[in-house]
């Protein structure tokens, strides 16, 4: 994009310019088969609305392959997503994904990404928050807005170690509970893991696959009273011991 650097113009001006960019394409500019340009092109109207409403919290706006990305500030994220969800002009009722990106350039911040979709307006919006690696890797949780964010945030925490403040139950979801090797999708994580294969196997075999399921999570909970006595005793004992064990090893990670 032949634009001045993002720092020298305000977010509103930039969003306005991006929104008004005509699809000016030369014949050799990369474009998709349906003529969507690689960079530039009309931005999602929500980006302009965001830039006007949250002037200080909204950073630059990118349009790539017809998809709009808005960089926002961590402190305003919860409010912004809440507004996008509730405002009748936006109506982003569907949360597609929450993920994160770490770049190989060590100085570049880790970016947490939210993919929002408005089924009503047929819009797609990508929000990004940059987290410098020196600072705390934490962003606000949006489970109170989209309950579907629960597992997505757990996955993002499991793979990247990003903490979601306010999440009701932030623990690992893909790796097992007592996984001690770190966060697998980080760039400093070796592909085969940190421990030897025997050690990995030993730790994996030590895990009790049923230990962390509460009675509520198992459908057996409704049928508890009609279960055989020995099974009832075993499940009750397991529930009690799991509750005792939960307290000390909440701290997961490196």
């Amino acid at each position: 994009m032949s634009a001045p650097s993002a720092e020298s113009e305000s977010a509103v001006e930039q969003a306005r310019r991006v929104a008004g960019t005509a699809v000016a394409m030369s014949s050799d500019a990369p474009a998709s088969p349906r003529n969507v340009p690689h960079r530039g092109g009309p931005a999602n109207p929500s980006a302009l609305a965001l830039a006007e409403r949250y002037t200080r919290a909204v950073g630059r706006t990118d349009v790539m392959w017809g998809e709009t990305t808005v960089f926002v500030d961590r402190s305003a994220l919860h409010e912004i997503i809440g507004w996008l969800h509730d405002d009748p002009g936006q109506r982003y009722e569907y949360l597609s994904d929450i993920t994160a990106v770490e770049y190989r350039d060590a100085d570049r911040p880790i970016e947490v990404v939210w993919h929002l979709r408005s089924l009503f307006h047929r819009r797609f919006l990508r929000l990004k928050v940059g987290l410098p690696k020196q600072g705390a890797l934490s962003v606000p949780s949006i489970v109170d807005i989209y309950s579907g964010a629960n597992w997505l945030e757990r996955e993002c925490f499991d793979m990247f170690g990003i903490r979601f403040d306010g999440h009701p139950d932030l623990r690992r979801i893909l790796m097992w509970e007592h996984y001690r090797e770190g966060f697998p999708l980080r760039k400093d994580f070796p592909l085969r893991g940190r421990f030897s294969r025997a050690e990995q196997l030993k730790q994996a075999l030590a895990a009790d696959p049923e230990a962390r399921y509460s009675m509520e999570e198992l459908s057996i909970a409704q049928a508890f009273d009609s279960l055989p006595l020995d099974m009832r005793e075993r499940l009750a004992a397991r529930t009690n011991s799991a509750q005792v064990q939960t307290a000390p090893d909440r701290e997961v990670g490196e």
Partner: protein
Amino acid sequence: MGLSPASDRGAAHVEASGDGWFTTRLDFAVNWARAGSLWPMPFGTACCAIEFMSTAASRFDLARFGMERLSYSPRQADVLICAGRVPFKLAPVIRRIYQQMPQPKWVISMGACASTGGMFDNYAMVQGIDTIIPVDVYVPGCPPRPEALMHGILMLQKKVMGERMRDRSLHVEMEPDTESQLYIPPSRIDELSEPFGNSVHQTRSSP
């Protein structure tokens, strides 16, 4: 099993071996019964399970080999067929399923991932289920065709036909080390899990 040449039947009566005629015939009868009605417990985790389904369905028809009933409960199963990759998170599960199966029991490791970890030489994958449970037959392929799995099953039947009741080393329940839960030494596991082939170059994200 039908009639096969005497040399193929296993547990043949050979005067010089010291076994009496009666014990070898009893061995033969028991083995014949076992080999002809192996009930598989399918442990399908990935694409190999699709090939397994195809093997069990009408075109290839696993029932021809006495596997009419797929036993989805390990308590009634004779052979565990592990079809597909096994991540570390599933390691305690497959170990427990194996322990719940009654003796005599056998294990078929179906496909490259179950046998060696295959292309998944990464932080999440068990590098061969023989590091968790003993394996009788390895079926190579990615995934193996139904013919390959049937060949593995025929090999297992041949192995079953060769067993002797007198051999006390067979069908002894595996006792893993109480502390580490491993049943082979850690150094051996590391040796088995060494990277090989292309995967030795996969180190670019190391610190």
